[in-house]
């Protein structure tokens, strides 16, 4: 039991790390990773939704009639997304403004629905939570690392939390602002995917 628990948790960190391995959830991945802070905020919001929707769906997996299961999942997921949205609005308002429309869009993020359908509806609550936590942390890490690459090259800073950079390259650096524009997101993601495949192949 403990072994499979660890397995379900760690698979989300490398073997099935969402944007890089499963190539899922690309909409927020490309859109919000202008800075590390945005990546972490989006990742944590998604993790919260993942863990709780996985838990609830797993608990209710014998109650939900198979024919309306997707509708039920969406109701559950949308509830948690709205909670996240309200809480972010109340406590981290500047971050809420930068993430904007992408918070409500977590509802249709294929990672969340994918985990609900493929994992939580067939496994026990403990396993489902471990799975949600693993995938969520993997998603957060990917977004943060993509955000780090784009922010350091595109703006010359690293912002972890609160809007103030913890590290700045300096005035001599002319920011390569292509990287924080939309096309830079595609190029950066493509290069990181290639890098992951290069490491994974060995």
């Amino acid at each position, binding site marked *: 039991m403990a072994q499979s628990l660890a397995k379900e948790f760690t698979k989300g960190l490398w073997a099935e790390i969402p944007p890089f391995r499963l190539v899922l959830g690309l909409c927020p991945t490309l859109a919000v990773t202008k800075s590390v802070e945005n990546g972490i905020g989006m990742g944590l919001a998604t993790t919260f939704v993942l863990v709780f929707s996985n838990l609830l769906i797993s608990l209710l997996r014998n109650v939900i009639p198979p024919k309306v299961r997707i509708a039920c999942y969406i109701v559950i997921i949308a509830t948690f997304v709205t909670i996240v949205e309200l*809480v972010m609005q*109340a406590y981290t308002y500047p971050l809420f403004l930068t993430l904007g429309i992408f918070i409500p869009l977590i509802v249709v993020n294929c990672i969340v629905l994918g985990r609900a359908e493929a994992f939580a509806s067939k496994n026990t609550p403990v396993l489902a939570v471990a799975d949600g936590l693993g995938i969520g942390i993997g998603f957060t890490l990917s977004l943060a690392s993509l955000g780090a690459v784009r922010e350091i090259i595109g703006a010359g800073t690293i912002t972890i939390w609160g809007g103030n950079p913890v590290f700045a390259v300096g005035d001599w650096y002319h920011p390569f602002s292509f990287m924080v524009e939309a096309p830079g997101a595609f190029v950066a993601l493509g290069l990181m995917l290639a890098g992951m495949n290069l490491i994974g192949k060995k």
Partner: protein
Amino acid sequence: MREMISMIVVLTLLASVSGGLLAAVKSGTELRIEEQVLKFQKAPAIESLFSDVTNDPLKERFTLDTGDRTLQIFPGKMKDGSRAVAFETSGKGGYGGDIGLMVGINVDSDQLVGARVTTHAETPGLGSRAKDDLTFVSQFNSRPLDANLALKADNGSIDAISGATVTSRAVTRAAIQAQELYSQLKPEILKQIQ
């Protein structure tokens, strides 16, 4: 038939539990969200408009009913003793949706104190200059209330931001709306601020 009933029951239960939960969270966070919106969106615009008032416009805010919506009004006492109010209007048809504009009006002289863009989703570097670069909105400073605040291209008196005519037009729409609202609400405003 049994399956049918279970489908209906489960979905109804889920939806009502979710609705109840959301209502609870919503009412729990409502006050705080209002404060945050005030603090991060309206407060900077009001502070920049009423840079030399002797009171706290945010604390003394009150609401008025305009028929189709309630308007938050922020009163300010200017240093020279005259009274002013600020309120937010929204201009339709910006490049990325509506544009919020905080307009300050001096109640005693019936002149505009000025205007500041609060919320927008315009193109960074083009339309966003309406908020970041004050040269455009400073054209509203000290205009009499009956001035034509449309763009010069629309036979008005305001220069558009070069390369961002659509944004500029939406801002002027908000300003014109503020003129109309003010002339409609003036008696009530006077009653409130004494």
